[in-house]
């Protein structure tokens, strides 16, 4: 029988939620690393018992934890993220230049082929890779050293590299996204990078064709169609059919096109999910109703999914890394909120129920489908 493991990162620790394939009864494991911010926990696609976690604290900095038994026990591994060479400067909020400074790891992306290789997206924006299961980290400096680097500037949450997508059909191709620089693609395994922001329109930027400066919140790719990308931008839901060379808007009938996460049904690459949020200055659901919106047409036509979700007096947010899907026959969809709820749907979003209601604010949700 298959089972599901939901890996939850919160402001005050990590949790592992487990269920059989019915996804009706859940065991709650944790908290792990109590009191620490867990920005992300993710398992290796090669070895599901190999998990990596980003643990950080304003007091004691960054730790990386690794588990080799599916989250039962953890071992701290390497925490030294040193930029290659002299890191240079990027733009600060006031237009001045600031030196690159490491703050934390936002996202960990294990390799699709080697359980000892894992990528880390960090603040200030850079991409690191470990090939020894997290013991040591080397920067893929070609990204940070892109000529546009001095023009990158932080979003309100910091200048974070929050999205890493690995192309399952081409080991040389990867995509990343940075707030608020934009999306980038490498076609040589991370040595060199090009901005892929053509078609993004950001009213906050005076140049409508700006190469960088776009506040990309999240990108999603279905493994069967790695050239098709979906993006939740600060404002606008976007789609690319050519590996990011160009984008067009698919916000359609969404009640608001601001939001953070975006994800794709495991078996239907044209079925996508977002959580509309009222505005960039309020960060609450419209009308106090928590609604996931689903498009079965790859965007533009959206339906509200509300069954089992609070439809009054709800003012939580759903952060960019806090939505995931499982790959069971009936695709499960999961998301966590800043109010500490983790909701699950075992039927592709038609019906929802909370797995837990009272965790610390949820920063990230990942799902492992175990056979």
């Amino acid at each position, binding site marked *: 029988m298959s089972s599901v493991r939901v890996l939850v990162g919160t402001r005050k620790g990590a949790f592992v939620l487990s269920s059989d394939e019915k996804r009706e009864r859940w065991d709650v494991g944790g908290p792990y690393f109590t*009191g*620490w911010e867990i920005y992300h926990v993710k398992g290796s696609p090669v070895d599901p018992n190999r998990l990596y976690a980003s643990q950080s*604290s*304003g*007091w*004691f*900095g*960054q*730790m990386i934890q690794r588990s080799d038994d599916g989250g039962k026990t953890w071992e*701290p591994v390497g*925490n*030294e993220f*040193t930029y290659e060479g002299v890191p240079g400067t990027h733009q600060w909020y006031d237009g001045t230049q600031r030196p690159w400074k490491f703050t934390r790891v936002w996202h960990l992306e294990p390799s699709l082929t080697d359980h000892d290789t894992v990528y880390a997206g960090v603040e200030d924006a850079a991409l690191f890779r470990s090939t020894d299961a997290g013991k040591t980290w080397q920067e893929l400096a070609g990204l940070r050293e892109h000529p546009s680097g001095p023009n990158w500037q932080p979003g309100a949450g910091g200048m974070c590299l929050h999205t890493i997508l690995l192309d399952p059909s081409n080991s040389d191709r990867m995509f990343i996204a940075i707030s608020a620089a934009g999306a980038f693609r490498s076609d040589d395994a991370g040595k060199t990078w090009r901005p892929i922001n053509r078609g993004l329109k950001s009213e906050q930027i005076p140049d409508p064709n700006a190469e960088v400066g776009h506040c990309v919140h999240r990108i999603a790719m279905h493994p069967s169609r790695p050239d098709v990308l979906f993006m939740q931008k600060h404002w606008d839901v976007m789609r690319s059919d050519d590996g990011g060379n160009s984008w067009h808007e698919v916000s359609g009938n969404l009640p608001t096109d601001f939001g953070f996460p975006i994800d794709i049904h495991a078996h239907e690459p044209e079925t996508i999910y977002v959580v509309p949020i009222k505005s960039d200055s309020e960060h609450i659901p419209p009308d106090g109703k928590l609604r996931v919106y689903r498009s079965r047409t790859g965007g533009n036509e959206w339906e509200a999914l509300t069954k089992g979700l609070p439809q009054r007096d709800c003012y939580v947010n759903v952060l960019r890394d806090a939505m995931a899907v499982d790959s069971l026959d009936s695709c499960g969809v999961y998301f966590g909120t800043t109010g500490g709820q983790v909701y699950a749907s075992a039927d592709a979003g038609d019906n929802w129920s909370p797995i837990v209601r009272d965790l610390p604010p949820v920063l990230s949700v990942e799902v492992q489908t175990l056979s």
Partner: protein
Amino acid sequence: MIRVVLPAHLRTLARVSGEVELDVAGEPTQSSVLAAVEDRFPVLRGTIRDHVTQKRRPFVRFFACGQDLSHEPADAALPDAVATGSEPFLIVGAMAGG
């Protein structure tokens, strides 16, 4: 013998309870004591002072003998009572909300 008290989160990482006792060659300083802590517990590298600059992390403080030594030079001698082991060197997570 130098006695060092770690904050709770770092005791968890180092998998110790209570005080830590360390041998430090020569006259003990903040720098030499922290190096001894990191040698004994490599997992703590980067948690007390920055990996690259070796400067104290902003929300970590150093106390001993009723004094805040956080702003003392890293190579200044620690009080005699710390050097003789009669008083511990306290590494403290600052009260900073949260």
